[in-house]
């Protein structure tokens, strides 16, 4: 693992490793509040003839005030009664996944922005023609920019995103997806020479290749073709076309 030495030191400096320490709490610390409440309820239980049931309900009600939590996903802020509630909320609201590359996004806005920017060749075409296509990620803002960097700067300046934030983060696909992609790459390379490329213009092709290198998939095909006729070898196309393509790659017969 010699080649990872650099990354190693970075992690060395950055990651807060587990360190066993003794933890002490003050008597009125929230850590002890459950026990304190239990003390008082037990002491008054007999005098007030509280049933066990009532006591538990009271205990829960008071505990709940402490357990309220707000959703930590950027831009959400939903208030949840409990941590258990959070899991339901997360699964309901923040697991929109891309059917092309399986990446998961916390809102449908972000998902659709991702699909356009990463999988839509027409998006790239419009960018090439100078349209402002890169949309701000913050719901309700709506500003659009001509390039990725411009939008990034806007996020940092206007919406206080950290400069280290990357919308196009490298993907970490499941093993299965990775193997599939690596196979696609292999097929693609072997078919490269025999493929007929139907492109709308040299310049677009050049720009598209350049842009596709910016994408986050692990494999960047050296060529992309548009249009339904040449679906072979195409990796980054909208969903509808992709389905056709999947049928094709099954036909080309890969060694499993």
């Amino acid at each position, binding site marked *: 693992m010699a080649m*990872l030495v650099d*990354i*190693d030191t*970075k*992690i*060395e400096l*950055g*990651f*807060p*490793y*587990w*360190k*066993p*320490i*003794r*933890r*002490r*709490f*003050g*008597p*009125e610390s929230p850590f002890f509040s*459950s*026990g*304190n*409440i*239990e*003390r*008082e*309820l*037990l*002491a*008054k239980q007999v*005098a*007030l*003839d509280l049933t066990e049931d009532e006591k538990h309900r*009271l205990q829960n*009600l*008071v505990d709940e005030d402490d*357990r309220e*939590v*707000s959703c*930590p*996903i*950027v831009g959400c802020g939903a208030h949840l009664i409990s*941590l*258990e509630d*959070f899991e339901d909320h*997360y699964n309901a609201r*923040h697991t929109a996944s891309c059917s092309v590359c399986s990446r*998961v996004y*916390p809102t449908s806005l972000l998902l659709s922005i991702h699909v356009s920017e990463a999988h839509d060749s027409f998006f790239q075409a419009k960018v090439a023609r100078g349209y402002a296509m890169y949309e701000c990620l913050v719901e309700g803002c709506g500003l659009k920019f001509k390039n990725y960097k411009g939008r990034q700067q806007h996020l940092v300046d206007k919406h206080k995103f950290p400069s*280290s934030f990357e919308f196009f*983060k*490298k993907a*970490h696909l*499941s*093993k299965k997806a990775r*193997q599939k992609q*690596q196979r696609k790459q292999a097929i693609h390379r072997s078919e490269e020479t025999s493929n007929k490329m139907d492109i709308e213009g040299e310049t677009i092709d050049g720009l598209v290749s350049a842009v596709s290198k910016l994408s986050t998939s*692990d494999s960047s095909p050296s060529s992309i073709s548009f249009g339904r006729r040449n679906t072979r070898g195409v990796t980054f196309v909208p969903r509808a076309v992709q389905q056709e393509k999947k049928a094709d790659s099954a036909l080309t017969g890969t060694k499993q």
Partner: protein
Amino acid sequence: MAEDGLTSHRRDPIKSSVGNVAAHRRRQNAVAVGKERRESLVRAKRLCRVGPSGDDSDIPIENDMIIDEEQSILDAQTSSAVEELKSAVAFKGKGAMQKLVGALRELRRLLSKSEFPPVEAAIKAGAIPLLVQCLSFGSPDEQLLEAAWCLTNIAAGKPDETKALLPALPLLIAHLGEKSSSPVAEQCAWALGNVAGEGEELRSVLLSQRALPPLARMMLPNKGSTVRTAAWALSNLIKGPDPKAATELIRVDGVLDAILRHLRKADEELATEVAWVVVYLSALSNVATSLLVKSDALQLLVQRLASSNSLQLLIPVLRSLGNLIAGDSHTIVAVLLPGYEITANVIEVLGKCLKSEHRVLKKEAAWVLSNIAADSIEHKRLVHSSEAVPLLLRLLSTAPFDIRKEVAYVLGNLCVAPTEGNGKPNLILEHLVSLVGRGCLPGFIDLVRSADTESARLGLQFMELVLRGMPNGEGPKLVEREDGIDAMERFQFHENEDLRNMANGLVDRYFGEDYGLDA
């Protein structure tokens, strides 16, 4: 809120009947009373409903919500009782003492009835100055008792009601003296306990008026309700946050001895209140902690934990043990040495608490274990080989969240050697492999997914251990299998930058481009 209900019913008289009005208002009241009820139940103050001599059982406790009418009747009765008291105080003729005691008793009864005694009405009618007068020196015991009882219940209410007792404090404290009769002293202690339970400010006032020494002395006898009440009052008085009172208490002659004696021999009720005193002593005062650790307090606490099944007692005893272990490094280093019987006993009794059905006991027992597991390698070995670990593993997958977090601390601490300097801490491979092999990883990944920052952090830190330490590069595969990558990728859009960086760092380092190529 009740007003609104009334008006809306007035507008539609056809639709409502008398019964409906009452029921409707009861419901409207329910929310307000519910909250007030909750608050009054969890306060550190206690109403006195039965006198020290145990008599007066003719008062039924009313649990039902009091509708406006009932409350206002009670208030009216209270106001007139105070009027009666006023004239009785002024009266100098024959039978004055009887008249006065009678008036006091009447007021006391009204203040001991329902769940929410008419304290406000009493104060408004001017009860407090009168009651202070009734506390004057040389008054008969019965008079002192009834007056102190009234004040006790007035002080059990809301903050401003408790504060109204300020003029009475010097006299209440004075009647704690050893010349006072026991029931009188006890009732005064109770009143003062309520005042102390209100807050820091009033505690400060009480301490400056020297309430502590006489209360401490009242805790010295072997048994009796007075000892118990005094212990309870002291627990309220020393709860800080200023540690001075706790330190002052342990320094009073005979107190440490009495505490140990009660822990050893007292009945569970008394032992419970004394244990709470120890909770505050051990949480706040290093002097007290040190003295307690050097005595046989630890052994006595362990014995109580082993032999009792009373939740009321177990909570403060467990917490005292926890505080002593957390607060004093001497405890672990010199007293709870690995190989000593006391150490094995402590771990065993903590296991018993983990098995309990009570949430508080499970959570705090795990906390104590996490501190023992934070110590030397020998301590970690002891904990790891005890029966606590199977219990902890089970709790990690099934228990409520706050318990799982504490369990995580224990298990993680078992896997990491004591830190020296600022370098990367060393793993205890044997424990890591053993615990991961017994299925603890999913539980940690669950914590990574939670909305609680501290837990997510713990989960990620443990994942780092697994990724770094598991032999044969198994770590990443194991993590992937349990959907760990998924869990970490959630942080990409998380608002907490530290967690984001931690998660991204791990993913970059262990699941980079070459991951899985050799598979």
